[in-house]
């Protein structure tokens, strides 16, 4: 076992060596521009891209004509939201999303608001799931798009996408989902799930960084988005720019591997995750954040009350994890996702996200359990709040000096 141990697979994943191998020829021998229609080099590159398009489409049950390659999920989210807003402006100007979405969705929606659009940010229930009745109530004749993520990046909860899609469609709106964390981890099928647009990224599923895709439905209904970048009219006019051929080939290979291995991998990972979670929730005053039933197989987000997340991570120095603590964010605010579950700030500050992955071993999980337990105990020995809790003092009865 090599230290440090990587348990931050929701931030990014290592590129699978099989993916790297598939990409390499496209840097040196097969380096052509996929848009060069009149010579061998262009054809070879285009072949690589076409094959990747099929691999991506197959993983999500789409047709290859429905896949638009982008630079990643952030671009896909932006293209979907801004592109739909622009394309369907004669139909309406209202978009519905949720407060726990990724910043790429939330900030694209804020942009739409600046352009005169109306956006509803749905709250979520305590378990992180969208309340379908609230969604239904928020729909208006002006609603053109509902954008709700498939699986959450911080707590891993899986939204009821099919029901959300049905509500959107009943009211004549499109359904878009940021499925960055879900694709390649759990079965996602655009037809079964009623998805009209879907954002995905390669580097969250053992592919390279800097490449992703947007699925855009072609039939029932035929969805269009207005391009957000002007140029050579690549990708059926929806996304100009010379294709990142090696990256796209890598994304395709990553999708193929996920398609073949996802089912057994999900079983293995959820067993490891459950082992980690049960061992850590034995600790007093530790809580799992988010719905545990509808959850991605590889994520556990746990709050260890009375210790602070960044301090805890420092004690877990051979583990790479992440925290909802303010101290780990640029904004010095604790995680907005955890806060929207109704978690108090102090519990949000005390959270650690464990993100397991394809290369995580049981030995590593066992080690992580030991290190985390020791770290929590060490920091509680240092914590005045833990001492007060143990003395039975109600922390809410103290007048804290906000600073």
């Amino acid at each position: 076992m090599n230290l440090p141990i990587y348990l931050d697979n929701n931030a990014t994943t290592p590129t699978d060596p099989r993916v790297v191998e598939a990409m390499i020829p496209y840097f040196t021998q097969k380096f052509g521009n996929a848009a060069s229609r009149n010579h061998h080099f262009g054809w070879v590159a285009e072949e690589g891209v076409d094959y990747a398009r099929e691999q991506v489409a197959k993983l999500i049950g789409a047709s290859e004509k429905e896949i638009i390659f982008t630079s990643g999920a952030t671009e896909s989210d932006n293209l979907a939201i801004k592109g739909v807003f622009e394309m369907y402006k004669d139909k309406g100007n209202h978009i519905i999303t949720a407060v726990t979405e990724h910043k790429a969705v939330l900030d694209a929606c804020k942009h739409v608001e600046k352009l005169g659009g109306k956006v509803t940010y749905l709250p979520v229930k305590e378990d992180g799931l969208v309340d379908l009745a609230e969604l239904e109530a928020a729909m208006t004749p002006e609603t053109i798009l509902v954008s709700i993520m498939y699986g959450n990046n911080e707590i891993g909860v899986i939204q009821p996408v099919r029901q959300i899609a049905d509500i959107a469609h009943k009211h004549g709106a499109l359904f878009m989902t940021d499925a960055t964390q879900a694709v390649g981890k759990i079965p996602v099928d655009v037809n079964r799930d009623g998805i009209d647009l879907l954002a995905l990224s390669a580097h969250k599923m053992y592919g390279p960084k800097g490449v992703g895709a947007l699925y855009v439905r072609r039939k029932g209904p035929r969805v269009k988005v207005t391009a957000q970048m002007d140029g050579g009219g690549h990708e059926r006019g929806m996304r100009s720019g010379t294709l990142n051929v090696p990256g796209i080939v890598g994304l395709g290979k990553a999708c193929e591997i996920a398609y073949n291995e996802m089912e057994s991998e999900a079983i293995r990972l959820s067993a490891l995750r459950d082992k980690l979670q049960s061992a850590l929730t034995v600790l007093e005053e530790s809580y799992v954040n988010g719905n545990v039933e509808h959850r991605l197989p590889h994520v556990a987000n746990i709050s260890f009350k009375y210790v602070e997340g960044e301090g805890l991570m420092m004690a877990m120095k051979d583990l790479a994890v992440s925290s909802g603590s303010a101290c780990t964010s640029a904004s010095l605010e604790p995680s907005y996702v955890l806060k929207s579950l109704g978690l108090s700030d102090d519990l949000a500050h005390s959270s650690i996200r464990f993100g397991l992955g394809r290369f995580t071993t049981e030995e590593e999980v066992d080690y992580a359990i030991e290190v985390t337990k020791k770290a929590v105990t060490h920091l509680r020995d240092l914590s005045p709040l833990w001492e007060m809790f143990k003395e039975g003092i109600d922390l809410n009865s103290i007048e804290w000096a906000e600073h």
Partner: protein
Amino acid sequence: MAYSDKVIDHYTNPRNVGTLDKSSHKVGTGLVGAPECGDVMRLQIEVDDNNVITDAKFKTFGCGSAIASSSLATEWLKGKSIDDAMAIDNMDIVEELALPPVKIHCSVLAEDAIKAAINDYRVKNGLAPIELEKSHH
């Protein structure tokens, strides 16, 4: 962001962790910060008849820099007179621990904790609390 060696040292081997008898008239206790903000420091001093701090203890809920700042503060307090302790400035802590700008608030909290402990001691012993400048955070 990497931590400085001194922060890691204080974090890994914190000095003077513990609790003094807060009901003793010789002990001053400062509890500053708030759980919602992610930092709470409790710093205690024990003072002898000559106004010299003979012991100091802390417990801190917070990040590594907050723990290191309070650990360092207790180290500095031991053996100091109350007057010298009052003169400890947060920037001394920043310098000693090489804290980056985003962690300056940890040093401010440590300075506030020192002053709060001294004032608690003064009030317990019938002295007026020292007027503190409005803290700078």
